[in-house]
Structures are given as structure tokens and as C-alpha cells.
């Protein structure tokens, strides 16, 4: 199975973002991190992809998840 492309849109202060990133790291999943507090383009991208303005947003091969839901995340990542 080829590795899935994972992007995490987050803010530096958001605890659920930290938990999501730590979860990915603990499971050896590589991801691209986008700080929507600093990066305005990433913010707009996140809003248009997810249709909402809450973080974290996780993009797994184009599938969008809002929030940190460990069960769903495992399912989507196949781990």
C-alpha cells in the first residue's frame, strides 16, 4: 500500500491540533503541516476544502476531516 498524503491545518494554540499531530507522529505517519494562523493562503484553502473555520482540519488523500477523532482517523488511515 502506498503512503497516503496527509495534510494538517492547525493553529499553534489549539490543543486538539497538537493531539492530532502527536497521534500521527506516534503512528509513524508523515504529514504536511500548515499553520493557518500565519499562512493566509492555507487558511483560505482550509475554509474552502472543509466549508468551515474550525481547526484542526485533516486532509487524507483529499478526504477532509474536521476535528480530531481518533477512531475515524485510524479508519481513514487504515491503521
Amino acid at each position, binding site marked *: 500500500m502506498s503512503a497516503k498524503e496527509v495534510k494538517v491545518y492547525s493553529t499553534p494554540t489549539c490543543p486538539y491540533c497538537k493531539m492530532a499531530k502527536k497521534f500521527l507522529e506516534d503512528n509513524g505517519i508523515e504529514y504536511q503541516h500548515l499553520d*493557518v494562523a500565519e499562512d493566509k493562503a492555507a487558511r483560505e484553502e482550509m475554509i474552502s476544502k472543509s466549508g468551515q473555520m474550525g481547526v484542526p482540519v485533516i486532509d487524507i488523500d483529499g478526504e477532509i476531516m474536521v476535528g480530531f477523532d481518533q477512531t475515524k482517523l485510524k479508519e481513514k488511515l487504515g491503521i
Partner: protein
Amino acid sequence: MYELIIIGAGPAGMTAAVYAARKRINALLLSKDLGGQPLTTVGIENYMGYQYIEGPELMQKFEEQVKQFPLEQRIGQGASSLSRLDAGFEVGTDQGESYRAKAVIIATGKRPRPLNVPGEERLRGRGVTYCAICDGPIFAGEKVAVIGGGNSALEAAGDMVKIAEHVHLVSITPLTGDQILIDNLKDASNLSTFLEHEVVEVEGSSRVEGIAIRDLKTGEGKKLEVGGIFVEIGLIPNSELVRDIVKLNEVGEIEVNYACETGVPGLFAAGDVTDVPEKQIVIAAGEGSKAALRAHKYLQRL
């Protein structure tokens, strides 16, 4: 069938889990998430043993402590129903599973109180947020409104005046938070305060575009153009699960006695979901330990 199911994994639930595991109770820890309310608390200076620690870090330590013990966990599953059996309880989850146990500890905590006004639910996540610390930076450079007059609202306003174009602080009461937080806002030139005003409606088609507020004294209405709303008007207990089985007080908290007993044999409650006065991490943790020890005594007598 388990001996005990602990519902909720904040300070009360995780402490109950450690105590239950040390008593070798065959227990299940069931929770939508791990960590509870401290996850959105930045600095903690009154949890003994730590002079200063951030909420998520403290909860990480709680989690590590739980993991030291052989205890079953289902994290990511919220309890959606609880019913009494002839001997024990059945807990249904939002993932369609169900679990049975002789005893249950409810440690489901509290969640942010909604405004309950038109437009709020529809625009939730589209400019309406209940986690200023999470989503605040997304509204950098925009006009925003913070709703509430307590510490959480004042902290949110204090953070937002630094990055937003303008902050409207709207409270139905005079400001009730700590004086130090009120003083912090004194010099902000981009802050307007509407005390004794209520929010009537959240407006916008696909995103928040503004709010309608009303002066409680004069009845005069006003519209504020904002792109984001931070709702910080307190918390409500997650007690729906047992509202038909146990007694709730006037604010919906589960009434418990000194021993975390609800009045239903085998059903205990601990932490912020209960009517125990003062909502503090150290108190919730203490209550969680007490509930597990009482549950242990209850199970021994069966």
C-alpha cells in the same frame, strides 16, 4: 460483562480508572475523547505537584498514568444511552456498540453553553466558535465579537484585541471576571463593550456576517458587523445520559451524596457533571478517586 464502566476521560474519569485498576476491578474506560476540559486550559498553577503546567500536558500525564495499568479503553466512542438491567447497566455508544457492567461511574463533565439564538447552530464552525484558543488565530485581521462577561470571555477578548481588527465584547451582565483580566483590556483601542446586552441573532448566509444585539435596559436593537463570534458564556453539564434515571439539580448537574452515589444502586457520578461545589481539576480528580473506591465497595458487597 464488566464489573465497572467509567464514562468520560477527563480528570475525574481518568483518576477513577487508575483507582479501579489498582483495585483489580474489571473495568472499561469509555470516552469520546481523552483529557476533557483542561485541554483548552492554558496555564494551571493550582494543581498540586506542579508549580505551573499547561492543561494538555497535565492531561497527557494523566493518560500515561492510566496506561500503566491493564485497563480496557474505548476512546473515540461516546456513550449515547444508559439503561438499567435487572443486575447492572447497559451502555450504548455512538458507534453502535453496547457494553454491560454491574456498576457505572458517570464522569462526563461539561461542555460550552450555546447562546440558543437563531443562526447559531447553522453557522457553527462557519464563524461561530466555542474554542477561542483553538480558532482565534483564524480571525486575525477581522472584526469579531466575544460573548460573555466571565473569565473565559475576558481572556478571549484579551487574546483577540492583539490580532483582530476590532473586538466587540457583549455581555448580558456587568463584567464578572477577575479584575486583573478586566484591567488588561483597559488600554485596548480596538475594543467596544456592550454590557447588559443580549445576542438576538447570528446573521450570515454561508459564513457569519454579523450579529444582532439588544440593550436589555432600553430594548434598543443594534447590529454589529463581524466575521467571527466567540461564545464564552459558561458551561452545561453532560448529564443527558442519565436525566431520566437520576435526580438533576436546577442547572442539570447530577445530584450526588458525599460518596458520589446518585441514589441508583451501582450508579456513581464524579467531577464537573455533578452538583459538587467548585469546578477544579484537583476536585474532579479527588471525586473520581472517591467514586472508584465506593464502586469497589459496592462491587464487593454484591
